[in-house]
């Protein structure tokens, strides 16, 4: 019974789930618009990562409907027209005390986006954002099959250790 409770019921209770504001399809944008990851998720001039694109990026193409889906129409009605920023939930958002540099991983280490973010680029919809009720952290940051869920430091450290890049705590903490 305890085993059942621990393995089955506990995860359901522990996480709170909410859907993303718009059911965005990466696949459509990759196929039809020919967009690559960095077209919307870009670096700024000082090397910092811009993260989630802001509304002006979407409005630059979607000022008027480009397709026929209901999702797009409600996006234009709810966000583009009233000029309201969608409140995206970033699955991989790091805690406040972590300093993660995309430039170091993408530009220096030349890692592919999928290595950490899985096949998000090929997904047709956005999975719900699950948040751990106690710690407040996102559950599913990797979306890589076989990669453990959650955001433990050990996950980052194991890769760093393999590459011989473990110098000091403050390399990644701020």
């Amino acid at each position, binding site marked *: *019974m*305890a*085993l059942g*409770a*621990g*393995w089955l019921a*506990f*995860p359901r209770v*522990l996480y709170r789930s909410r859907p993303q504001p718009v059911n965005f399809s990466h696949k459509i944008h990759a196929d039809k618009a020919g967009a690559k990851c960095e077209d919307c998720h870009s670096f*700024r001039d*000082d090397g*910092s990562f*811009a*993260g989630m694109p802001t509304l002006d990026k979407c409005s630059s193409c979607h000022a008027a409907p480009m397709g026929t889906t209901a999702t797009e129409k409600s996006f234009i009605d709810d966000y583009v027209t009233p000029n309201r920023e969608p409140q995206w939930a970033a699955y991989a958002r790091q*805690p*406040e*005390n972590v300093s993660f540099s995309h430039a170091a991983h993408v530009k220096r280490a030349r890692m592919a986006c999928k290595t950490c973010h899985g096949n998000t680029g090929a997904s047709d919809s956005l999975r719900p954002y699950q948040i*751990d009720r*106690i*710690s*407040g*952290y996102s559950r599913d940051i990797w979306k890589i099959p076989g990669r453990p869920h959650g955001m*433990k430091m050990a996950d980052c450290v194991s890769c760093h250790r393999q590459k011989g890049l473990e110098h000091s705590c403050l390399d990644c903490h701020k």
Partner: protein
Amino acid sequence: MKTNRREILMFAGGSAVGVLFTPAPWRLITDTALWSENWPGIPAPARGEIRARFTNCSLCPAGCAVRARCVGDQPVQLSGVTGHPLSHGALCPFGIVGHHLPHLPARVKEGPLKEAAAALADGIAKCGPAESVAVLDLRPSRTASWTYRRAMAALKNGRYVTPSGDTSVAVDLSKARTVLSFGVPVLDGWGTPGNVNAARTGFHLIQVDPVESRTASMADRWLRVRPGSEDALAQALAGRITHAAAADTTGLTVPEIAALAKELEQNGPVLVLGSSRLASGSGIVIARRETPVPEEWKKAAPAENLASLPDRSVRVLMIDESASAEYLSWNAIEKKLVGDNPVVVVFACSREGYARHANYVLPVGVYPEVADDIPPAIDSVAAMFRISAPLVSPPAGMVKPEEFVAAAAALGIGDTLRERADTIHKTGRGKLFTYADAKSQALKDVSADNFWKALNAGGCWIDELDSKPSPARLTTVAPEVRPAEESELPLAVVLTHELTPGSPLLSKLYRESNLRLAPGRVALNPSCGLDDGAPAVLETLLGKCRVGVTLDAAIPPGVVQASASPALLDLCAAGVRAKVVRV
């Protein structure tokens, strides 16, 4: 099935062991640890694109150039602009936290606008033949100051009043070989700190100070005189009294005074600060050319000193306390007001100053919310024009003093800063220095529009130097010496000045260390018998006010060093006597 205690215990035990094989307890432990790190109520800084924006600091006449590191448009960090010809990239501790001022907890957020306007109109109408309507401008020579002058000229009995002191006089530090300062904080906030630091190795500094001020500790020589006796030393150096008489009053020795006189003679040219008895060496103190103004503005009321107004003659007084400036003791102002129901309107962001005495307090924007220009500092030989361009928006309901006063006088005004910039541009003189690229270019190579844009995005205009500047004299504001100097009050007051209002973060300097003395605190020698940190009352012949006490063995017995706050300044000026007692 009948459950008995044994079965329950076995079930519980089995579950406890079983649950250890599930992720639940381990997860609970780590999640609780994570929860304890991310304490609710600890704010998370906003993220966003980091941008640099530029402006000029309007907290003091230096008007240092400021580079603001912003997240989006919100400044999060201020520093100086390297390469600036006057401020040389320096920014003082008050300027560094200037971006906190919009969030001061005790800020004046609203005021009786309509009632004040009505009272003003009423007072102006009731003004008798010998009475006047006055604007007291605590930071004269700004563009807004010209609007006040024009407004007062438009009124029948309008007068434009400033604290005494001539803002058109400039000091050329580079020409001084010796600087003799009578209590002036040359190395601690005088002039433009960046400029003073850059010129420091070029002059020998002799500081005359009753206590070891920051400037005295850094000076080449410190002469400790008894408080209030600085003038005696100046008289001796001017040859009006003997060295022996001066030694008697000041507490210095005759050889010290003789050596000083010899040094001044041999190591000129000398710049004298803080005493108008001694003239500075030739070419050091000059009349600065005025920053150009539109010709139509010159039909304006002249600037009058507060002291020169007849007593009991001002029926309506508007005080512009919006730009940070030195606080004039209320007594000096009060005696100029008529006896029966004068109307006093003050534009202020803090209730600590004239708001305590005014009928109406109207809220204003603070640095860096409002556009205002900063007249050239005393150590700027060239005329300048620089705008403190706003970095954030002021809250709703703030009053613009310039517009309010103009409306009260029924004077129509446009964008006065733009008009002035255009007038300067027409002269084609001087250079424009832009902060983003730290480059200087001749004004005539810039279009009027680009000039205006540059001034608002971080830049300043520096005039050509006068080839033959006319000499001028530095007038010193004589401290209001109270009568009956032989009072029983045991302590002589020495004042220090901090820039107010200031960010709450200044607690690092005031409370979390003993580096500076907070406004409203006094420092006394431990022999005074009071406890460090104790609340106390300072009493002078004019009244009492509460102060905090800091014990400092460097303060001589018989002296109280008071860090000026408006309440303290209402009670005393340098040279007055006081006593400090436990509450």
